[in-house]
């Protein structure tokens, strides 16, 4: 399309038509005063309809969430702005004397929308060897503490491999160590006696067994997302807010599609997440320890998804927000990963074709998954399709024969190996097995035995979770031993 000039002819604000414009938003000029309500309106238009548990059809009567609020803060521009606007709109007290802050105006005066609100930061500094990245959690804490209404929580990426963290949340972890062999497509599960389970070592071992830089970047995002979700659930939060701007939403949509995540295109902008363990407990007979309290479903809302990066930057600048910055060490130049390439591409495209990002977001909003989901992926806990393995082996033949059945005398002794693959969505399976021409093929099977996140291990042993995907149940060896212990002669 032909490039348009940066502004329309007039340099006067199109809203108030009097003040001189200060910012151009997609060819329209706004003044600083008119800019603030414009952004707040976009924010609320996106968040408000999702606040009440059930949509009440007509005008927003009273906004009242069914649980608490968690805000995911990366330290980047988007989440910094998100925290600021959320604080103004829903938590600012009447006695606020700061000029220009209109927050609270349209809200119930006494009753808060959410009873409690917390801000959570996921520290990724220990994902790689010591000293590569600085732990920024104290900088972020200093920033969050300016907002007294929010409690501040620090999670560490290694918590995803930390049994004690998972137990605190009420999760069940088998007593043996479950690992997946990433050397082949089936991702066969092996069990070993639980060795020293240093979470940092497990995290690093997991990341280093991934076949591509793309997989490392995506896995870090997935781990952080699940840490936030499980934390939200454990804190009775009905909502998790993320600071995804329009620009970053477009990037994550294309990034997800480029990694085979088309089935989850909706979840990239809005998601209702029910944890695997809650699903399996729904039919189980009650003694499940996992479901303290009522809230099981967490809504993930991205209230900045109609607001571009430039508008976020203007908001931060005009409001004097301090942006700590995100951790970028795992993809320094952005050239090696699909995520980094997509970001460069979209940001570059936006420069020449300013409507691109909103077109991408609007197009994807018109899409829906083609078929009903068949269970949940046990790594990313998003809806998954069935039959991906068949599809893959039909169009990319990687072996000349179907796996030959074991001779009976072997099979009876040795049950067929349990595979992680049928429990995964297409994108997670691709993340774990798809190699790049540059990646070094690992030879020793030992080298590619990857530890798994706690929720994945938990889902593999929880019977119903395994049944969701219609596959064999992995019975924990300790449990088996307990069940048959009295019949065992030796020992």
């Amino acid at each position, binding site marked *: 399309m032909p490039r348009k000039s940066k502004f329309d002819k007039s340099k006067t604000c199109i809203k108030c038509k009097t003040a001189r414009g200060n910012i151009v938003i997609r060819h329209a000029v706004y003044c600083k005063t008119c800019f603030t309500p414009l952004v707040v309106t976009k924010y609320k238009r996106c968040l408000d309809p999702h606040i009440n548990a059930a949509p009440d059809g007509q005008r927003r009567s009273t906004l009242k969430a069914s649980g608490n609020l968690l805000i995911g803060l990366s330290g980047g521009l988007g989440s910094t702005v998100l925290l600021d606007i959320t604080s103004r709109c829903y938590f600012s007290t009447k006695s606020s004397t700061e000029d220009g802050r209109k927050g609270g105006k349209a809200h119930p005066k006494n009753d808060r929308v959410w009873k409690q609100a917390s801000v959570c930061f996921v520290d990724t500094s220990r994902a790689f060897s010591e000293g590569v990245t600085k732990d920024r959690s104290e900088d972020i804490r200093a920033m969050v503490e300016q907002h007294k209404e929010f409690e501040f929580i620090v999670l560490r990426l290694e918590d995803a491999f930390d049994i004690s963290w998972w137990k605190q949340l009420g999760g069940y972890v088998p007593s043996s160590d479950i690992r997946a062999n990433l050397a082949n497509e089936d991702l066969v599960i092996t069990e070993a006696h639980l060795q020293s389970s240093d979470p940092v070592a497990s995290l690093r071992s997991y990341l280093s067994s991934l076949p591509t830089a793309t997989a490392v970047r995506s896995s870090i995002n997935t781990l952080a997302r699940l840490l936030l979700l499980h934390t939200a659930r454990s804190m009775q939060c009905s909502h998790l807010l993320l600071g995804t701007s329009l620009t970053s939403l477009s990037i994550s949509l294309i990034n997800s599609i480029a990694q085979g995540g088309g089935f989850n295109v909706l979840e990239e902008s809005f998601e209702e997440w029910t944890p695997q363990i809650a699903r399996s407990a729904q039919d189980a007979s009650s003694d499940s320890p996992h479901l303290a309290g009522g809230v099981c479903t967490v809504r993930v809302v991205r209230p900045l998804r109609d607001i571009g990066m430039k508008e976020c930057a203007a908001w931060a600048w005009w409001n004097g927000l301090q942006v700590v910055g995100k951790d970028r060490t795992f993809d320094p130049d952005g050239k090696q990963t699909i995520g980094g390439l997509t970001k460069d591409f979209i940001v570059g495209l936006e420069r020449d074709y300013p409507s691109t990002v909103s077109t991408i977001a609007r197009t994807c909003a018109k899409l829906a998954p083609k078929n009903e989901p068949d269970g949940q992926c046990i790594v990313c806990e998003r809806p998954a399709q069935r039959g*991906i393995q068949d599809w893959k082996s039909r169009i990319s033949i990687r072996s*000349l024969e179907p796996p030959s059945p074991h001779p009976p005398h072997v099979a009876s002794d040795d049950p067929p190996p349990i595979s992680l693959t049928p429990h995964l969505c297409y994108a997670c399976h691709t993340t774990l097995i798809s190699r790049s021409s540059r990646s070094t093929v690992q030879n020793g099977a030992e080298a590619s035995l990857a530890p798994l996140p706690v929720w994945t291990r938990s889902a593999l042993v929880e019977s119903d979770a395994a049944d969701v995907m219609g596959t064999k149940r992995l019975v924990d060896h300790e449990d088996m031993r307990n069940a048959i212990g009295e019949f065992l002669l030796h020992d």
Partner: protein
Amino acid sequence: MTPTPKTCALCSKFRAIIKRPKTGQQICKECFFFVFETEVHNTITEAKLFSRGDRVAIGASGGKDSTVLAHVMKALNERYGYGLDLYLLSIDEGITGYRDDSLETVKRNQQQYSMPLKILSYDELYGWTMDAIVSQIGKKNNCTFCGVFRRQALDRGAAMLKVDHIVTGHNADDIAETVLMNIMRGDIARLGRCTLICTEGEDTIKRSKPFKYAYEKEIVMYAYFKRLDYFSTECIYSPDAYRGHARTFLKDLESARPSAIIDIIHSGEAFEVKEEVRKGQKAQQTCRKCGYMSSNDLCKACTLLEGLEKGLAEARIIDVGGRTGSHEMPPEEPREVTKLDPS
């Protein structure tokens, strides 16, 4: 240090001589031919593309995709007994020095494969050669003409040959690129269709893409090892800058992770346009001038022709989305006029 020669990852017998672009596996030449052909066969049978006795035209441009397609279609038809009558159908756009050589390739294929060949020219169909169009409107935007005319020309040629089915050489790269393009341009109608292996118009002639999952690099590799010769069919006239961006991006993704091409197609197959959005889409009608299907009063080709007749240089019309790009990948259903979202 001399690297020990690797054995083929598939047959474990012969020496691996290639690293397969799609999977990264190191395999031997015969195994490469086998998996390449078998994947196309799987694509055809899974989609139940043909029935015994079908008359199938191969849209042959003399470029790499259609040259390899003709070869593979003939081989699979014999190996698996599809029972198809195969024809070659070629379009002569009338671009001096561009089509002449590649038409020679097609004529040679006709003899090699003993398939009947039909060549149709823009001149006889529309009364305009591309050269004449270019001299009328200049070198810009004539890819629009090419894309629109070519597709209609193939359909008309197929009708003359009385075939049931046209197969084209669109490969996985083309389709992945089109998925990305349609998302970036907001072309929801085409996005819903572009991953379909087979589309059927009102004229009941099916069109399908047996190379839907075949990587461009592997098509070239196949031609190279089979010693099939072909001509570059890159259009000498102005290509589409926007599509160019998408293509470069896709190549970058592929080098970061080769499965990206197939992963994008998988994404495109996993979603569909929401029903409420689909209902709002314009219904198809037929062109009042030529009777071809169209979403407007006049079909796109007739609109373009009318513009030419009037000598309107700006005849390139209506839709910004119509910069249709390379000839190897005429866009899906270019006969329709799409509205671009107002920005």
